[in-house]
């Protein structure tokens, strides 16, 4: 912490920093270093979460704008210049609305369910790297951690449906939960292939492994990323992320005219937290796709420098793909959703797993 502060603070403040450190040392003694570590970690967490939440708010805005342009409309343009304050106005409106609790509902579970849906999408950012060194916790099994944490978000859905004391919400939650679990299997299998070729569970290592190879030596980094040799897995993972986040065309809970979802009984802020969960899961999904298949922070061409900018650029491009899909695709029917997950994606994954396994054992192995 002190090293970083010495780098970023202007020169005339440095003596004050030294005095502050001495003061702390005298006051707390040996515990001072521990306190500094904790404070510094909290600051880092805040530096990740605050932009993330702002990003979630403006993703909703960007979605409305982009879909508007795709449909030759203008999109929100009333609140603030170019409608830029629209997400804040929406948030304020939702905050001021009444949170209704259905009669016979399990009150505590009813209110905790949206939190269960939202927390995992934020928690997973603890191990998401932004560059070779810029990561909050560089743990060995970071990809496993992400998978474990994101698998918890299904509880938000189940508990929301059950605690609403409504048959519609309950059946909707069963549908959504079954959908999430089904696509988690396909997602896990496609990740197994990624792990096989990168020989690590650490996301930083996975990204660094993508920057090596024949094409990277020629300066064409974007051809050495995982998406090309694992093209079927890339497609499976991308579509599974759509289904995991409950985005169009897999947004069955949103189809209020034909089939209702797990959050029919939610109103006001408790409903808004579910929406926040959807959008933050979407941003996390784009980050994961960028890191695992699109080279993370590595630049597309050798002569350009690698930086976190490329990661954010890829995430934004993928977010636009998410909006694009919502603007163009019709909603899947539920049996089609399940068929795609179980009968198409899982066999494709298993076959490609076998192919890549044989490929790695053959003399043409490109991942040594």
């Amino acid at each position: 912490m002190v090293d970083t502060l010495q780098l970023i603070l202007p020169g005339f403040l440095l003596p004050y920093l030294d005095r502050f450190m001495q003061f702390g040392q005298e006051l707390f003694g040996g515990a001072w270093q521990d306190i500094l570590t904790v404070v510094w970690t909290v600051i880092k967490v805040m530096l990740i979460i605050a932009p993330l939440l702002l990003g979630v708010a403006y993703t909703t805005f960007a979605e409305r704008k982009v879909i508007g342009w795709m449909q030759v409309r203008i999109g929100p343009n009333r609140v603030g210049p170019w409608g830029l304050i629209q997400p804040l106005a929406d948030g304020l409106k939702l905050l001021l609305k009444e949170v209704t609790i259905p009669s016979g509902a399990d009150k505590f579970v009813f209110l905790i369910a949206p939190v269960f849906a939202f927390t995992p999408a934020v928690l997973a950012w603890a191990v998401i790297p932004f560059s070779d060194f810029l990561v909050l916790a560089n743990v060995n099994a970071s990809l496993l951690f992400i998978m474990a944490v994101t698998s918890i978000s299904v509880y938000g859905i189940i508990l929301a449906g059950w605690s609403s004391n409504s048959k519609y919400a309950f059946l909707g939650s069963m549908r959504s939960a079954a959908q999430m679990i089904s696509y988690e299997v396909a997602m896990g299998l496609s990740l197994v292939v990624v792990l096989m070729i990168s020989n690590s569970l650490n996301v930083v290592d996975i990204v660094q492994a993508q920057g090596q190879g024949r094409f990277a030596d020629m300066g064409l980094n974007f051809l050495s990323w995982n998406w090309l040799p694992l093209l079927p897995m890339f497609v499976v993972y991308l579509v599974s992320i759509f289904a995991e986040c409950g985005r169009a065309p897999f947004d069955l809970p949103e189809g209020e005219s034909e089939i209702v979802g797990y959050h029919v009984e939610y109103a006001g802020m408790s409903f808004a937290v579910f929406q926040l969960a959807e959008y933050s899961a979407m941003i996390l999904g784009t980050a994961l796709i960028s890191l695992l298949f699109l080279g993370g922070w590595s630049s597309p061409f050798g002569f350009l420098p690698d930086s976190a900018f490329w990661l954010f650029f890829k995430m934004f491009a993928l977010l636009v793909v998410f909006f694009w899909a919502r603007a163009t695709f019709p909603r899947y029917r539920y049996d089609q959703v399940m068929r795609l997950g179980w009968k198409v994606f899982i066999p494709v994954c298993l076959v490609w797993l076998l192919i890549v396994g044989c490929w790695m054992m053959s003399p043409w192995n490109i991942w040594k």
Partner: protein
Amino acid sequence: MEFKTFVFYFISAVLVFASLRVVTLKNPVHAALHLILAFFSASGVWILLQAEFLAIALVLVYVGAVMVLFLFVVMLLDINVDRLREGFWKYLPLASIVSLLMVAEMALVLGGTYSGLLESDIPQQDSQYSNSKALGRLLFTEYVYPFELASVILLVGVVAAVALTLRGKTKSKSVSPSEQVFVKAKDRVRVLKIPAEARE
């Protein structure tokens, strides 16, 4: 008290509390939720022991998949909470014998090996040591036959579950996507040319 010790006692307290609530709560859904909390705390204890793969696998498999299906079943069952306590005294002797036996067995196993758990020296590894790698290497070299055998048993379980629920062909009308894909316009649409009739 060292910080790690404090964390251990905190997690263990939560674990014991959650496990107690699993058996004492009336509402089975709440009991299942406390079971999830217990799994979570157990994985926290494993993280403290630097067994990160086991800890994450516990959350991934038990919390992320098994308990979800468990909750499905518990929620869909029509459980009458008032009648749950019936036969409590009738089954108490048998249940207490079984539980006492289990406690005795666990005490015998754990008492020998793990007494003084906190003082025992867990092999300290440097931060780059990968637990999952070591586990994978062992599983696929030394224990490869038991591992393969376990996977075959699981496969048999999967096939058995499918066979139990498969009851012949479904009578419901369902579309076959492969047939849908191969439909051509001329199979469905017939363009007829009808000459205009002259006005009388």
